[in-house]
């Protein structure tokens, strides 16, 4: 798993690539949690995410909870079909803001 960071219109864009499973969950949690600050606007670009396990989903939940506590906003975008299916099955698609691409996600976070 690889995580890269960039900023776009005041939004922190983190791109997660590879597999987000039990073995990479701890690292991802550490990386993403460090971003949580007041009014943080965080966009997770999951276009490169090949696989997500329940441990990975837990990391997303933790991040979402942290962001909510800080009064920030979180959005996911560009989910691959297989990841989208996991989100659907688990019902996670209903608790995350999910946008089809980065631009729309940025708009969503700014508004």
């Amino acid at each position, binding site marked *: 798993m690889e995580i890269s960071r960039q900023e776009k219109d005041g939004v922190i864009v983190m791109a997660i690539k590879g597999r987000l499973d*039990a073995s990479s969950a701890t690292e991802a949690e550490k990386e993403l949690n460090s971003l949580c600050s007041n009014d943080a606007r965080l966009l997770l670009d999951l276009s490169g995410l090949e696989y997500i*396990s*329940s441990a990975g989903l837990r990391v997303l939940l933790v991040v979402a909870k942290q962001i909510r506590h800080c009064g920030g906003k979180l959005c996911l975008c560009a989910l691959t079909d297989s990841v989208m299916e996991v989100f659907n*099955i688990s019902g*996670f698609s209903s608790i995350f803001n999910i946008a089809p691409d980065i631009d729309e996600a940025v708009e969503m976070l700014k508004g």
Partner: protein
Amino acid sequence: MPQSGFSSDKSIFIVGDKTQMLRQSFSLEPVPIASLISGRSLGFKMSAGILSLLIPMLIILFYYNYRVSQDLLMKNAAENARNLTLATRNRIDQIFLGAEKVTNTFAAMVAESGFDEKQMHKLHKVFIGANKEIFGTCMAFEPGVVKNRDKGFAPYYFRDDGAKLGYKDLMESYDYFTWEWYSRPKALGRPVWTEPYFDEGGGDVLMTTYSVPLLKKDSDSPAGIATADLSLDFLEEIMSSIRFFDSGYGFLVSEKGVFVTHPNKSLVMSENIADLAKKMNSKELNELSVSMDERREQLVRHTSLLNGEEGWLYHTPLKFAPWTLAVFFSHDELVADLNAASRDMVFIVVPGVILILLVVVLISGRIIAPLGKLTSAVSKIGTGDIQTELPAVRARDEIGKLTEAFGRMQQDLKRYISDIKDATIAKEKIESELRVAHEIQMSIVPRIFPPFPDIEQFSIFAALKSAKAVGGDIFDFFLIDDRHLCFSVGDVSGKGVPASLMMAITRTLLRTQASGQTEPGIITSRINDILSRDNDAMMFVTFFLGVLDIMTGELYFTNSGHNPPLLKRKGENAVWLDERHGLPLGIDGETEYLSDRMILKAEDLLVLYTDGVTEASNQAQELFNEARLLDLIESCHTNDPQKVTHKICDAVEDFEKGAEQADDITVLVLRFNSDSTASDST
């Protein structure tokens, strides 16, 4: 120092000979030498190596030098012996030739006088008086040559007691015509020196006689013989004055091989060389005799007839007569100085070699001592005593570098060992945690099959195959009351001990909340409420919960984010149970979960599983996926829950072959038999 071609040729031969000898001595026993060297200390090997080169080299050098020096000495000695011999020969010849000359003159004067007796006596006295070396002189005549001396006449004047002059007519004492001194020159018609002899009449001195034929005027026939006796005392004097080295000496041999002078007095005038050679059976003497006969001048090997010493003889013929003059010198004396010098050389070289060896042993000792300490220290380290201290580095030479390298190796080794200890402890910790997780997991799932042997309305079978890291799967089933079967499959997020603890809590909550409650929505909501409290880690459980009325086949179920089960009704295609009722448990405590209702008919099959089945991957990273599971259930020729469960597990195992099982695999299969008298037959 090759000074002459001769000696350097010789030395080359010697060197070649020597190396061949060395090679032979080495090739004779190569194995013992190798075994002698191997296993010895470095000092021994170095010393042996240096000695094996140095000693042959020194020996060859020594031998070469000795030979060259000896050749040189020999050459010098031969030259000196030759000079001495020739000088002595000239001295002797001069005396004899002088005697010849005066005798010839005397004879000529006698002949001139017409053999007048009176005149003859007068000439005799003048002649002998003027020539001190002449002992006596004689005129011996044929009968009738001198007037009134018909039988012959031989007036003989000689020195009697030195000062006085004696006279006698030899005709009166013996018949001189047959004597050698008379007959030989007469027969040969030329002057002759006789063999030396003791003059018995004259005074017992060793003498030789020069005889000259006297010729009549105008006639070739001899009138008589004129003689001059020469005492050989002077020869003794000359010969004994010869000095060559300390014990060198000279001697004279007559024409017939008789010793005229010799330091060994017993030989003088007694032995003939040829006879002596025969008597002593000496080839050397025989050759000398022949060489003298042939009047050669040369240097030959000779064994001293005085004291048997080995040495050299230079001999040359005299001019006046076929006599031989010889000078002997001892070989030992010749090489005495050389031997002394060689001894000195040995005294210099041997301590030198010993000194070299001492230095080699000292240096190798200095090298080896730290090496020995290092060796024993490293051996100790090798046997496990890692704290052993290495010897201190004294110099930046190879040994020092080696010691430092070993020091670094020791440090690395210490670090590795401590790392390995840490890693082992960590690994054991992890393994023990995994074991705990596995034990928790296995202790909470039902393990007795068939679980309800007395109940015929349904058959149930389940299997849980833990992954190495324990994935957090859970299943459970139990009867809430006489007619309600509660069954569930869940998957906790994460792995290991936290997941298994979450699992245990979930299972306990299920058992407590399902007590007296048959509505799965309500049970699920209550469990979720409790799990969500203080769940900062956001652990969650995907959960499928079903409650079956075993009398009617009425099934209520709630799916909280779990994989959709498969329903295979008898005679129909398998379908997914797609109904969803909310998020996994533990995320949002306020969620109200609802449930769906359906009726199971006889021999309908419900297959529950976790993502360990559908997300099992093979070596090519392909997933087992839902489609394969659906196909498997469709093509399954049995509806026996146990067999179906095993088929699924086997198929996943086959698929995963070669890859490690990544997640727990859980399968639960429920078959509704009938509401009345169904049997377990398939």
